[in-house]
Structures are given as C-alpha cells and as structure tokens.
C-alpha cells in the first residue's frame, strides 16, 4: 500500500514537472520580411509587422534593436 502511494506521488511530481517544462513563451511573426521597392531618398517610411504569442506562457517583448 505504501509503495503504491509513493508511486502515485512520483507520478504526480513527474506530471507537474513536465507541465512546467512544457510551458514556454513563443514568438511567431506572421510575415517576417517586407519589400518596399523603390523609395525616394530623404523620406520616412513605415511598415507594421504582426507579432503573435503562440507559446504556452505569456510573451514579454523586452527590446527591439535596430539592425
């Protein structure tokens, strides 16, 4: 009976740990590149990219670094 209880506890722990390990944030970018084509000099142009949170945990956008 005691062994069965221990086995049950181990099984629960494994399942909880597996759940924690599987929950991870994930960023998916719907369209990750954009071609503006011909653009005049000395102009400011812009484009919107859509960022999707597709993981199992909340996604934090920490920083966008110009490249």
């Amino acid at each position, binding site marked *: 009976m005691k062994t069965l209880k221990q086995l049950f506890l181990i099984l629960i722990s494994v399942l909880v740990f597996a759940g924690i390990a599987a929950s991870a944030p994930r*960023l998916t970018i719907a369209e990750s590149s954009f071609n*503006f084509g011909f653009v005049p000099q000395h102009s400011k142009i812009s484009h919107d990219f859509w960022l999707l949170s597709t993981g199992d945990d909340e996604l934090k956008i920490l920083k966008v*670094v110009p490249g």
Partner: protein
Amino acid sequence: MLPVGDSAKLEIIFDTKTYKSKVSKKPKIQTNEGPPDKRVTITATITPRPDSTYPIRIVPYKVDLSQFSDKVIDKAEFVITNVSEEPLDISMIAFAQDYFSVELPDKVKPGETVSGIIKINDDYLAKSFNKSFTIELSDPQSSRFTVPIKRTIRTPGNQDRVKIIKKGK
C-alpha cells in the same frame, strides 16, 4: 506582455536619408522566449532620382499633407504615369489604414496617366505622422513603389498651447 494567443503590432520606421540602391535592415526582437532572437527584414531600393523611375513615375513621389493654418488639409491627389510599353495592373500591398485611405486606379495603359487620392481619416486629422503606402505592378519584375506620406500639424491654436506649456514650466 502578450497573453497566449494574443497579437501585437510592431511598427518599423525607416529613414532613407542619403542611402543609394538596395538597402536591407534586420531589426532584432528580444523576448523572454530566449535566444536566438527573432528578426524582421525590410528591404528598399532607394532612388536618388524618383522623377525618372521605370516602368511608372509617381507625382508627387512624396506626399506632404502638412497643415500650418486653420484651413483643413485632409486629402491630396497623386498621378501615376506608365512610361513602359506594356499595360500594367496596380495593386495595393500595404498602407497605414488607421491613418488614411487610398483611392487607387487598378490599371494604367502604356503612356497613360491615372490619378489617385489619399484622404486622412478623421481620427488622425489633428495628428502629425510619417507613414507610407506600397503598391505593386504586374510587370515581370513585380516592381514595387512606396510613397511616403507626411503630415505635420502646426495650427495657430497648437502654437498657443505650446506657449502656455512653456510658461507653466
């Protein structure tokens, strides 16, 4: 913070300055997902002579909808001339739809000039912004053209407000 299943818009603004020819930029997005960081890529062919492009010419090649008086400036016309020998279909690829609408002809015959209209949405009439729209042609290269749209608001009412804020400081 973006809950699971949610989405957010990331606006990338590119100043073409005095760049020439093809330019590519790859801003990096750092998140709690960890490395490697994801990137978005923008490419543009910066032209120092926008008045002599091929297969179309757009006039004006930059649209300025700035307003420096109480007279409301909320729309502008532009024309597209087909300088090639083939008929071209024109399609809208991207534009800042929150800020303005674009009436765009869908075809232009060889040698023909067609016109379009940009109209600022009411919600953004009181705001300054730098946006753009991008069109694509049906030529073999699927050429794209981006027209910058600039609006600066400096009405007498706004200037008074600026003065009051400065006095308050």
